């Protein structure tokens, strides 16, 4: 589904990603961990097509297409979804209008007719239930004045609405209370199938208790320096990153 080869990216002439290799297959859950500033969010931004970052080397293909060649909106329409670490507020734009536009753009890309008003409202209702999001939130402007946790829930709601093939969840768990964490994780699990894949970026094992990864990768200084099964996360939780840093520096 996603194949990343030797990906390098920089901002302001500072190289942040320094040769990423990663392959994600349908049905898999990958977890990326790593110390602050190691490049996790940069990787997700680059994959989503944020042109703040310049890709200087390497390739990424998504379902056989050259991902780096696609406009960000086309990457989204191809089924790539990013749950932002810091979701953006868009004052004045209602969640309903926003989602309606997004959903219909996806449909148009697939050659489907736009959703009728009643179909759309039903879809909203179903997905709201699925991710247990408060109706009040979807009646407001996009993320405007949302609490940190509410913003994260809203990301998962949008993911549910758009049913992506590959979802990248960038620290979706940070800022969530204990109940919300379970709700969000349940939402993600409900959306999981053998056709789609998830990349979770997190610092904590507690999310991985709910969303169980097939692989755990450690990103450090712009490279994936260690990959293993889910037990790696437990080991990191216990020992921290020092031993990996040491291994890497040696």
């Amino acid at each position: 589904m996603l194949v990343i080869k030797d990906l390098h990216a920089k901002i302001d002439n500072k190289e942040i990603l320094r040769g990423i290799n990663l392959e994600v297959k349908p049905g898999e859950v990958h977890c990326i961990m790593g110390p602050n500033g190691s490049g996790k969010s940069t990787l997700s931004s680059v994959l989503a097509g944020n042109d703040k970052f310049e890709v200087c080397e390497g390739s990424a293909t998504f379902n056989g297409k050259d991902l780096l060649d696609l406009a960000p909106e086309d990457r989204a329409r191809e089924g790539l979804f990013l749950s932002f670490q810091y979701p953006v507020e868009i004052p004045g734009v209602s969640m309903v209008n926003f989602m309606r536009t997004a959903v219909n753009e996806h449909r148009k890309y697939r050659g489907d007719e736009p959703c009728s008003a009643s179909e759309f409202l039903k879809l909203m209702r179903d997905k709201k239930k699925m991710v247990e999001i408060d109706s009040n939130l979807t009646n407001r402007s996009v993320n405007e004045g949302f609490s940190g946790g509410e913003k994260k829930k809203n990301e998962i709601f949008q993911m549910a609405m758009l049913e992506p093939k590959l979802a990248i969840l960038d620290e979706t768990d940070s800022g969530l209370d204990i109940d919300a964490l379970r709700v969000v994780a349940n939402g993600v699990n409900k959306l999981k199938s053998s056709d789609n894949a998830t990349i979770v970026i997190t610092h904590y094992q507690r999310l991985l208790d709910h969303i169980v990864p097939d692989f755990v990768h450690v990103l450090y200084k712009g490279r994936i320096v260690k990959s293993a099964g889910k037990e790696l996360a437990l080991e990191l939780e216990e020992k921290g990153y020092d031993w990996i840093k040491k291994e890497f520096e040696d």
Partner: protein
Amino acid sequence: MAEDQNKILDEVTGGEYKYGFHSDIDMETIPKGLSEDVVRIISAKKNEPEWMLEFRLKAYRHWQTMTTPDWAHLNIPEIDFQDIIFYAAPKKKPELESMDEVDPDLVATFEKLGIPLDEQKVLAGVAVDAVIDSVSVKTTYKETLAEKGIIFCSISEAIQEFPDLVKKYLGSVVPHGDNYFAALNAAVFSDGSFVYIPKGVRCPMELSTYFRINAINTGQFERTLIVADDDSYVSYLEGCTAPMRDENQLHAAIVEIVTMERAEVKYSTVQNWYPGDKDGKGGIFNFVTKRAICKGDYSKVMWTQVETGSAVTWKYPSCVLQGDHSVGEFYSVAVTNNHQQADTGTKMIHLGKNTRSLIVSKGVSAGKSQNSYRGLVKVAKKAENARNFSQCDSLLLGDQCGAHTFPYLEIVNNTAKVEHEATTSKIGEDQIFYCNQRGMSTEDAVGLIVNGYVKEVINQLPMEFAVEAQKLLQISLEGSVG
């Protein structure tokens, strides 16, 4: 609403002005230039009574003594008044019974514009008094209105049929001495609309007039007069588009509104004149004087405008709040792109006691355009407890455009409470990227954000107009980002 919005978004392709075409309707024009003779010819052609000719001549003589105004924040080339045709009427002005008799070319023009002169729109409850260039060609639904005693006709017709009403109110709100363009308009106005709502009558439908500049080099000088008698209500819509042109076209309209005791008038405009091409060539010059007087106690006037067109816009719909407890509201969206210049705003003149005014102005600037808000709030000595609240927001797209806010206050009564809030914001790259990541193109994202930003104003428009307005916003900002 969301569905319409998406339809709109879908429709938006290509960057050129959509309504730029020119239909070949026969025009009966008089020679270029302005003189006392031209004024007489215009009056004679319209078969006007003596008092009307006098009205025009007085204005013309006054205009000759005036000089072009100080152009505020605008950069305007000299206008050669001797190079303008001051009157054009479709030939053979016929008395028409039904749509079948209307010049098919004209019908086609209306259809290209999507103007609802057709049956469907009539069923939707909109009476249309279509003005093509200078003379009203067709008025629908007049009978229904007549049953309620409502007069809705062209101003030329009103001069013939209701001379007393016209004599009493024409020029009573905007006298010819008011400004340079008001004088010019009073001298040469060709046509426009007249509305009279009798005491206690609520007009059962939105009254709508579509203006359209259609003849090469013909300045357009409409004159609209709306009188709402005690306890009456009317909502009036004005919208316009113009064909693509190479020369600048002058437009100087006057709108006068009078409200009596407890009467309410809502006046909504969607203005979409040719703004000139990407380099600022061509385009309409729009100098409009719009003013309402709330004569009666507890009367109310609401101006709502969406301005996306014109090369140059100079326009300050105003309210004179004379009656005690009278209310004036002004909701405005002004969008400028490329080389457009807009200098708009409002004047709220508080004369009566307990008068209130509200100003909501939303400017959107893109390209190399300049967008200025200029608002005057004046509270006279006798206006006890006057209240005003002004909200002036500017949204910038890119960094080559300008937004300016000039609030003026003249307050000589210390019981007045006047508040002014202003904000300037930019559409952030992170907002655009967020929308991109959800599958929207940058252009659609900008459309969505801009429409969200102006929602407060658009919501004041009647439904079908709101849709049109959103479409215009989207079209006029095409190519302004990315």
